Structures are given as C-alpha cells and as structure tokens.
C-alpha cells in the first residue's frame, strides 16, 4: 500500500522556498488586498462567477506555469507519491472537503493566517498538523 522514500534535510532550500512563498503572499495582499489561500482560490476558481473567478484562475495558472518553467530548466519535478491510487483518491476528497469546511489550508491558515495573528488560523494549523502527524505515524508504524 505504501512506499517509503527518504529525503535529505535541506535547510537552505527550505528557507529559500519559504521566503519566495512569503513574498508571493505579500505581493498579492499589497496589490490586490487578497489573502493567498490556495484552497479558497481553488474553490473560488470553480464556484464563483466573473472577475472573482478570473483572478483565482490566473493564480492557479501561475502555479502550473511555475512547474512547467522549473521542469524546462531543471528536469522533471521530484514528485514521489507514497501511497496507492485508492488512498490518493480518499485523501484528495478529505483535503478538498476539509479545507473548505475549515476555511483554509497550509497557506491560508498556516502562512497568511498565522502572520496576521488570527486565532482561528492558529487553532486550525495546530489541529491539521496534529491530525496529519497522528495519521502518518499510524499508517507507517502500526
């Protein structure tokens, strides 16, 4: 059911990537007044009408272009899935449903929400990291 690929600790790449993510979030807030929460952006891109859909679709398109751009210069993206398709389907549904019920994901709550000291986001982040740690450890170690 699962594979287990080990990954090296890469502090500088992590920090650099994190800073870029932070800059993207700041850019969006400063210019458009919007919070870059990806789950909300994905949801709005398929459920909202008109302009509210267009800017979200543009953001999603930016994500896809970044991936194509990276692979043109550096080769294929390292994406090593660890569980079978059936588990990916179940997990995908839970992520979609859960992020909308809880109004945010790793970006909206974990980065933007914590940065604006939102109590809701701090609680949500602790809860989703907690439940993710528990589930991962159950799957791998029991």
């Amino acid at each position, binding site marked *: 059911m699962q594979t287990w690929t080990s990954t090296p600790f890469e502090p500088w*790449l992590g920090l650099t990537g994190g*800073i870029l*993510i932070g800059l993207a979030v700041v850019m969006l807030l400063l210019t458009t007044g919007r919070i870059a929460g990806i789950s909300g952006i994905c949801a709005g891109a398929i459920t909202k009408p008109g302009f509210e859909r267009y800017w979200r679709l543009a953001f999603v398109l930016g994500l896809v*272009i970044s991936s194509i751009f990276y692979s043109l210069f550096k080769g294929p993206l390292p994406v090593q899935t660890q569980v079978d398709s059936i588990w990916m389907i179940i997990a995908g549904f839970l*992520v979609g449903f859960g992020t909308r019920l*809880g109004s945010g994901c790793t970006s909206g709550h974990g980065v933007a929400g914590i940065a604006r000291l939102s109590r809701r986001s701090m609680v949500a982040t602790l809860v*989703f990291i907690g*439940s993710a740690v528990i589930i991962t450890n159950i799957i791998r170690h029991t």
Partner: protein
Amino acid sequence: MKIVLVSLFSGFIFGIGLIISGMSNPARVLNFLDLSARWDPTLALVMGGAIAVTMPSFYWIRKRNKPLFADKFEIPSNNNIDRKLVIGACIFGIGWGIAGLCPGPSIVAITTLQPEVLLFVFSMLLGILAQHGLHVKTDV
C-alpha cells in the same frame, strides 16, 4: 486586468517556492509528518521562512487604507473558533497525512501527469464541490 496579471505572477512565485523547498514532493512532506528516526525537518523551515516574510509585511501593509490596485482589503473578519473550523482542519490533516499533498503542491505536481496526482486533484475538486453543495443547501 492588473489584478489578474499580478495574481498570475504571485501564483508563479508561490509555485517556484513550493518546488524549490520540496513541499511539492509528498515523500518530503510525509517525512516531516513522520516523527521517526528518518525525520526530515525541511518543512518547518519552509513555514518559518514564509512567516518571517509575511508577519512583518502584513503589519506594515495593514497600516495602509487600501491595497495598490483595489478599493479595499478582503481579509476574513470571523474570529470564532467553531466546530466547523476544528472538524474541517482535522479532516484536512487526515487527508494531508495520508497523501502528503495539500492544495498548492497538488496543483504544482499536476504537470508530472502522474496518475496518482491527477486522481488526487480530481478528487480534491469533488471534495470542494461536495462541501460547497452542502454549504449552499444546509449551511453545514
């Protein structure tokens, strides 16, 4: 139009950040969530680096009356810690802990065309629509 272009660019930078940091690799995410001997703490630095940029910037940006290209800031005002928030976050965490993918990285990973990733994203969109449907009907 400006807003659409800046959204596109912001998405691009965001995506590069996800890729460079390895957040778009489920193996790395799961090795962060798995607290065993092979623990990979890179993800903590991704969040830390992002918050180190956003926290002081937000403080400064919110002193402005309005954003550069729009009339007002659209920042959530709800401050209630309710059941929906906690249950939703818990369900999200379970999905994240199973697959090692959250919404941003899953979109970035689409271009690998791996069937597992495509199935995840398709199912995630169904999950979003399912919650949207329930929300519209019953406000769950």
